[in-house]
């Protein structure tokens, strides 16, 4: 797929992805809000600039692989994929409904383009490590990306996988951690502290980059930088604002696992997104 380089254009897409997320979640009536909104910029950067992929040939062997280990933020992936051409916009309204490709957590059996089923935390990291190992065994040139949550890093399996990737120096593997500091029961540092997170990854033999995950330019730069690191796998700690773009959701763990109510709450979220928080006139 042709890469988009104009920042203004990418930001506009990310804003559209956020509006899609609100519309999808309101229609579905259940799901997670904060994570998807916070990661709209990262997924826009991935699907419209970073990833080497082709929506018309989702099974193309040369594609970069993207594994979403934090499966619960799948609305952002679905919205970005559909905007990139993997489906028609009307399909967004089928999220979590019977017969949909847009399962509540990504499901390979329903939609092969999501690469793997995911939801039980930590599992997608191992799957991505296995994919990177297989690619290296076969001398393939594509990159393997893995998006994880930060609360997800409470899982022991995550560190089993990180330790193994460090041992094997899997330089074709790029992990992106959604460092939004919230999980269902509260702030990550209250639930089970992750800091010093950079030091942990470095101790596991990963190269660590840190970016403002709501700055598309920084995300793209970090992904390109990560590709140049030869000796190690790279993790990008993407510091994001959970609920980004909707003021009553931002930074609030309460919005981790629920959706806006149809009606005023949803209208207010869309009004804020369309006007970029009142900065511009809605289109």
């Amino acid at each position: 797929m042709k890469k988009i380089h104009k920042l203004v254009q990418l930001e506009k897409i990310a804003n559209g992805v956020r509006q899609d997320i609100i519309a999808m979640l309101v229609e579905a009536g259940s799901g997670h809000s904060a994570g998807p909104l916070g990661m709209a910029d990262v997924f826009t950067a991935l699907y419209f600039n970073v990833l080497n992929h082709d929506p018309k040939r989702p099974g193309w062997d040369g594609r970069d692989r993207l594994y979403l280990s934090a499966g619960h933020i799948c609305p952002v992936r679905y919205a970005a994929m559909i905007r990139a051409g993997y489906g028609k916009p009307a399909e967004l309204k089928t999220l979590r409904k019977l017969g949909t490709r847009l399962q509540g957590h990504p499901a390979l059996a329903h939609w092969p383009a999501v690469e793997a089923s995911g939801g039980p935390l930590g599992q997608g990291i191992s799957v991505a490590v296995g994919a990177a190992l297989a690619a290296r065994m076969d001398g393939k040139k594509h990159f393997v990306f893995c998006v994880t949550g930060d609360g997800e890093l409470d899982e022991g399996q995550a560190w089993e996988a990180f330790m193994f990737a460090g041992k094997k120096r899997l330089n074709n593997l790029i992990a992106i951690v959604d460092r939004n500091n919230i999980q269902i029961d509260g702030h990550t540092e209250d639930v089970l502290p992750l800091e010093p997170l950079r030091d942990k990854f470095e101790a596991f033999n990963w190269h660590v980059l840190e970016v403002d995950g709501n700055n598309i330019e920084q995300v793209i730069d970090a992904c390109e930088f990560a590709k140049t690191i030869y000796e190690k796998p790279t993790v990008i700690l993407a510091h994001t604002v959970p609920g980004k773009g909707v003021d009553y959701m931002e930074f609030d763990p309460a919005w981790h696992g629920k959706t806006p109510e149809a009606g005023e709450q949803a209208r207010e979220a869309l009004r804020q997104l369309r006007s970029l928080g009142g900065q511009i006139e809605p289109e």
Partner: protein
Amino acid sequence: MKLHPAAKLHPKLGRKNVEMIATRDGYGKGIVEAGKKDPHVVVLCCDLTESTRSHWFAETFPERFVEVGVAEQNMAGMAAGMALNGKVPFISSYAVFSPGRNWDQVRVSICYNRANVKVAGAHAGISVGPDGATHQALEDIAIARVLPNMTVIVPCDAEETRKATLAAAARRGPVYIRFGREKTALMTTAQTPFTIGKVQLFKDGKDVTLLATGSLLYQTVLAAQELQAEGIDAQVVNCHTIKPFDDKGVLALVRKTGAVVTVEEHQIHGGLRAAVAESLAAQFPVPVRAVGMPDAFGESGTPTELLEKYGMTVEAIVKQAREAIRLKKLK
């Protein structure tokens, strides 16, 4: 005792000096053969390379062997990722750890993705012996057979384990193969047919069907000999595939006898007995008696001591066969 000719069984079967080989050796040979046939076959292991007999593969194909460390959850997930990218991974560990400890990863990363991963559970059953209950997998058939997309195979001896390993490599989708630590009786030969999903008649009979899975099939053959001495004509059936269960094959055999004993080195709940009872209850209800672990944890001891203490012996099979026949006559 007349064995069924189509099974082409070992000529020494039923005699005293039967050959003894560990089923894990059959797995070790099988993965090497599978690796020679298919360059996509890879083997992953969690710090148990020699005792799961994965070291023969590691020595033959070092570039296709992956030492994972003591991390069974990561092993299952990585294998899924490799399978989704064209590999045919065999993951080796003890059955208590895989599919025990990593059951969620086997469920989601492997089975839900229908990833082409083969889970090899070694040291299954109480015959692991001195290691004690923590290492005696007696629930693994139950937790594997409830997973959609999963095939479950429990070979009866080393030769059948080799064949099952090759068959698993050739079969698309997740497979669980279970085998043990100790040397057990060699019953089958290179000529013995093996088809996933088909029961195999070892000896025909008309009074009672003895359905066994795994190495206790040998004790079942001996039990049939004893029963013959008291005038009971028992059928002996090798039920190596627990899933997909051979409903038709079992029905055809049980129609002749009307009474069943299941024999397994596994909890009597959830394993072979459950599979047989579920199948027969739905199509041809007959008495089903069980020989297996009586809903208990094991303990340290020699394999023979433990099999005796927990009632997985020739005598127990004979006793349950008589009971099944008695119940059949009450009907």
